[in-house]
């Protein structure tokens, strides 16, 4: 297959890559750009482990072609902390023990950040529904939800 040249911006940096037309954005991130923070849990948009934002919109990178990223701005988990300073969500996930194995954590953090950017004061129910597309098999979600709510409170106070 002829490869496609794509120019995009990832975590604020201009990035160019070549990809096959049937390659997903997730494949490109992981296999071509070595950004392995986004995980493939299902490849069918059912688990959310590959969550990234594209032009600010939360998407599953397994359900988007790499070629579609042309001219877009992509952010991944690798772009979440500001240098050495963790995002409040990252810090609260650590404090609340909101991860056990950690495989779903990057996707949940990216999704939670997208939530708080739209809704700085979500209810527990809103948080649970927003994150319904991010499967976590370890925690039963309890500590995840608490961490997101606590981060939201801290960010509102800041």
């Amino acid at each position: 297959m002829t490869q496609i040249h794509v120019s995009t911006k990832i975590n604020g940096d201009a990035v160019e890559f070549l990809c096959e037309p049937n390659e997903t954005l997730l494949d490109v991130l992981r296999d071509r750009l070595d950004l392995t923070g986004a995980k493939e849990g299902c490849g069918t948009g059912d688990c959310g482990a590959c969550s990234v934002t594209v032009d600010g919109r939360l998407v599953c990178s397994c359900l988007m072609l790499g070629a579609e990223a042309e001219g877009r701005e992509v952010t991944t988990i690798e772009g979440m902390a500001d240098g050495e300073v963790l995002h409040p969500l990252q810090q609260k996930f650590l404090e609340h023990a909101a991860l056990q194995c950690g495989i779903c954590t990057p996707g949940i953090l990216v999704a939670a950040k997208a939530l708080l950017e739209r809704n700085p004061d979500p209810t527990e129910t809103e948080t649970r529904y927003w994150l319904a597309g991010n499967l976590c098999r370890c925690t039963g979600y309890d500590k995840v939800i608490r961490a997101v709510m606590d981060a939201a409170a801290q960010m509102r106070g800041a």
Partner: protein
Amino acid sequence: MALDDKHEAEGRVFKIVGTRPIRPDGIDKVTGRARFGADMSAPGMLVGLILRSPHAHARIRSINIAKAEALPGVKAVVTRADFGNVSDDDLRDILHNVMAHDKALYDGHAVAAVAATSTSAARQALKLIEVDYEVLPHVIDVDEAMQPDAPVLHEGRSDETVPAGMSANIMHRFEYGHGDVEAGLAAADEVIERSFKTAATHQGYIEPHACLASMGPDGQADLWCCTQGHYMVRNTCAGILGMEVSQLKVTASEIGGGFGGKTTVFLEPVALALARKSGRPVKMVMSREEVFRASGPTSSTSIDVKIGMKRDGTITAGWAELRYQGGAFPGSPVQFGAMSCFAAYDLANVQAIGWDVVANRPKQIAYRAPGAPMGAYAVESVVDELCGKLGLDRLEVRLKNASRDGTKAAYGPRFGRIGLTAVLEAAKAHPHYTAPLGPNQGRGVACGFWFNFGGDTCVSLNVNPDGTVGVSEGNPDIGGSRAAMTMMAAEELGIPYERVRTTIADTSALGQNDVTDGSRVTFAVGLATIKAARAAITIMCARAAKIWGIDADAVVWEDGHAKPAGPNAGKFPPMSLAEIAAVATNTGGPIAGHHEVNAEGAGVSFAAHLVDAEVDPETGAVKILRYTVFQDAGKAVHPAYVEGQFQGGAVQGIGWALNEEYIYGADGRLQNPGFLDYRIPVASDLPMIDTVIIEVANPGHPYGVRGVGETSIVPPLAAVANAVSAAAGVRLTELPMSPPKVLHAIDAARG
């Protein structure tokens, strides 16, 4: 240890154990830096893919790989012929599971594999492999597989415990118990007998199996993989491939969930075989569909239970017959179901019989307290129904009949120190138990039990020149165990948590370690960590003694310092660990402690779960309103991760109870191999999961630790079933209680 002995940790004031520090691997995992199974790559790496049987049961007449091998980019194709013969029965079953021999035994069974320079070339190559199948009749359901005329998977594998004349699909019969069940039932005022069925479920870890293998022409090999036990992977792969164990170094990646499902091998021997044949590193990653079709789900089961009770709530007898199909090879966990199902009760008359059965499904692998949740579901459902029928309080009845210290367990031994009554008393005193319920709502309670396990364990602890400490252990960290080990090492050494770093060593660095299973890690690795720290302390005290010119036994270790034992030992200022470490070179060389042990003395644990559920009587939909877990942890080293284990187990059990199931078509093919239709709970399905940690010290561990990982999945199937049955007004006897089944039961009960 006698029951009235004081535990060594009793009265000890812990400084670090029992607190909630941030896990050492935390920042890697919130920043995307942590490397999981599929996150590794190697120069010149090939992509490995597996061709899988589309048939539930078929004889493989021939496999032609010529066209696939000729495809540009294809560097190796392997079939069963590329593996040698293995004499050990268990290893041979594992080999036959990772690569089919003369028959494909289930939909998804591997029959060949390719390694190619790209995913697309590998995919294309799979299509070019020609397999000539003779399709055979198949059997999926456990009761059908036990019929004498059922299609047979393996001839001649039944062992000496199976009576003659039964189906060759029955591999083993187990029986436990004591007393006279018939006499016990005759003495009862009420006897209820019920039959139950549970569907096969999957552990549902979010990370698919993945590995990266390389092997040189000298036979030395490296393997990177996500597993619950890299020593097991090493030993198993070496056995299957005819390698010396020392030639294979296995490094465990970070692991994205396992719950028992990563306690065996699937891809690893195949990746090594492809690497051997191609001379190139080979990476293999399962798709989610492959995980469902061809890793190890649980048994589906069929269980009969009969229990007799007196009007005062005394259980006079318990009897159960459990039938578990364990997939295509022997070894379902029915024995654990039979052993554990009555464990919560002190019974004079009890019998449990288990049948291990094979069927045309993927070979089951451990799932959190393997075999126990299904047996507990059946028994706790009948106990609940008896309580209802006799108008008795469900927790009072459980307390009245509860196993206590010294009770002769239904599976044989007398219990040592156990925490069941403490767990039940805590549940009874909790406001949840008496909170009001609304219309169409019901409350369920159930008990659960798990044995817990110890096993082979090695820990090395090195005191660094700057006074920091490195701990090396050999068990993959599936839920925060590095934090727990770090805490226990720091506690023993008397230094801050931040000065200890725990690493999961590769297989070349330590001796044999059993798999991360059986809730053994905090218990067994913790025990070895404490003993390794104590060994290092002995050396550090001896070094201080040398410096002071006094006897080593005149030095004690307190708060991270060596001190003279008393006024008679001499007057010397205490030396800190860092001070002793700084001069280690001058006092005899580097300081380390290590401990290698087959850890014995694991303590059993009990839990009770309380759950409120609401049923929509018009649709059969179930909503979990409130959930509280009570469990004996022995000692909670890091309470936040103990709570996490309680919560995670409860929610997996909720999924099992309500919506998770393997659905097969008439053709024997799995119909729902994805997270869309294999429905694990999502965040919006659930309330917060409240937890109460009970601590009844395990005499077998220096701090009293019992395992906590598994017991939490035992009660929820029954607890949710009891709540839903109460809310729906009709007893539900089949899992999952999916809405069509609940609605059907409600409508049938209402005529």
